[in-house]
């Protein structure tokens, strides 16, 4: 059950982007969504997040069509972490993370202009602590480093209290240390039972951290399975149309994907 796409089709202005995608996110797993540029990864994420309606097929949450959920009810179950935050206005880390509770604030508190309290306050504090943002809580988002900002966005999603986390390349702008940090946090969250779908360009990171990998190409799922099953040279070369080599990581033997440049004289 939970969040499932069944034969989902979607296009922008007649140009098909998703051509029949079937995919579900299991409990306590990290599912990495990989594939070439333009394969439809981000689009699939937005369809799964309920931002876009499939033209055909269905996205369902616990068996009910996702489109039947009101925005607040959907936000209680699915949190989406954007790749970056480009805001015209600075906002403090604490105020940003507090927005995670927006979907469930009681009417009475809203009308009385109450600050966050009770379970909402606790959820925000826990999210800040979980991502080590306690010392940065009063900082403006614009003053944060890329890695700190990525953690703040993740904390906002965490404060939402949703059991599904969908992330759109959260590590794209980060250096290797921050990438690793974010993925370690996600692994911890998955271990606590969250269902995590993450769009990843970095196949090696996918190999190291994902429980399952889905390879998307031309709007279709070309391979879906464990990292060992999917990240194979023959599969990757045919999907990316480029020579790629797969090695084993010295620690643990997970697949590591490397480019195979044409030899120079």
């Amino acid at each position, binding site marked *: 059950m939970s969040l499932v796409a069944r034969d989902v089709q979607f296009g922008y202005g007649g140009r098909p982007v998703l051509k029949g995608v079937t995919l579900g996110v299991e409990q306590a797993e990290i599912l990495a969504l990989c594939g070439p540029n333009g394969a439809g990864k981000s689009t699939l994420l937005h369809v799964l997040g309920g931002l876009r309606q499939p033209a055909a097929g269905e996205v369902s949450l616990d068996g009910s069509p996702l489109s039947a959920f009101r925005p607040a009810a959907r*936000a209680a179950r*699915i949190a989406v972490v954007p790749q970056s935050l480009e*805001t*015209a206005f600075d906002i403090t880390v604490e105020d940003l993370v507090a*927005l995670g509770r927006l*979907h469930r604030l009681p009417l009475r508190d809203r009308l009385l202009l109450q600050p966050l309290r009770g379970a909402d306050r606790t959820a925000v504090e826990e999210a800040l602590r979980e991502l080590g943002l306690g010392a940065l809580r009063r900082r403006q988002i614009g003053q944060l480093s890329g890695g700190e900002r990525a953690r703040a966005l993740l904390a906002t999603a965490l404060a939402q209290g949703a059991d599904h986390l969908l992330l759109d390349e959260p590590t794209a702008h980060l250096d290797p240390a921050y990438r690793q940090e974010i993925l370690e946090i996600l692994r911890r969250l998955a271990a606590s039972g969250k269902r995590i779908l993450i769009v990843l360009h970095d196949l090696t990171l996918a190999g190291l951290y994902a429980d399952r990998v889905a390879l998307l190409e031309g709007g279709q799922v070309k391979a879906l399975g464990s990292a060992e099953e999917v990240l194979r040279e023959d599969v990757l070369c045919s999907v990316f149309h480029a020579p790629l080599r797969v090695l084993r990581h010295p620690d643990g033997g997970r697949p590591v994907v490397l480019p195979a440049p044409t030899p120079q004289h």
Partner: protein
Amino acid sequence: MRSRGGLFGGLMLALLLAEMLCAVMIGPTGIPPAQVFSAFGHPGSSQVVAEIVWQVRLPRVIGAALVGAALGLAGAILQALLRNPLADPYLIGTSSGASLGATIAQITAPGLALVPLGAFIGAAGAALLASTATRARGVGSVTIVLVGYALSVILGAISSLLLTFNHSALLQIYFWFLGGLGSVSWTQISLLLGVLALGLGLSLVYRRELDALAIGEREAQYLGVDVGRTRLMLLLLAGLVTAVAVSAAGLIGFVGLVAPHVARRAAGAAHGRTLALSAIWGGAFLVLADTVARSLPVGEIPVGIVTAIIGGPFFIWLLLRRERGVAV
């Protein structure tokens, strides 16, 4: 944090009231504070000082404070909805929409007193147009302001065109456009007060939605905001607040630009703090501008000239800073 914010807001409000008191003292006949206070106690008195205070100075100063507050609040709401710190009801066509609506009402149904309603419909329609036209992701903030400005010019041109062919309405509307704060009545003040209270109250209830929408519509949707409904409601609210301000005092620019900036500088960008402060600063700015406008040795000039002379360079400075990539 909340009490500190409240304390700061209270302090600003006290400063505004002190400024208003000074503004009541200033005029062709200077009135010392003691006499102002004694006149406050005798609203119906036929004494000259009491008459000046109650019939000339007070409505004007309170009117300036309320119109400025309305423009500051409308600016803060519109800036969040357009995700753009350069938005201002005057600059992006909301005020021109109000005038056009008022013009149409005056021409089509003179004598029916539909001018305020026309102003509201025009202002809300223009706010909707500006926000819908620039809604797509990735539209730069300078583009948004240019689109809004073009809208403002177009709506202004339509108003002029209509008036060219309707001389009978010209005089009334022209007088109404120029408005100024000299003609604000106690009835208009109570309307302004009511709409401002509604606008401030409702926008405060939706302060976190405004925070989310200022980040982006997509992000707001994922956070559980019913974006379509909330956005529409807040745009109508900004239109309503702008329309009563324009109805009372005509077209006054830059108050809605300057006030939210000063508010954010002082208290950060979270709307729980900036909305009320934008209204307070907007009021303070317009009271100051109006006092200057009516105290010049050359005689009184329209207050919009003063706000433009102060606010215009500020806007250009913001624009250039933004071009250089400094967050505003």
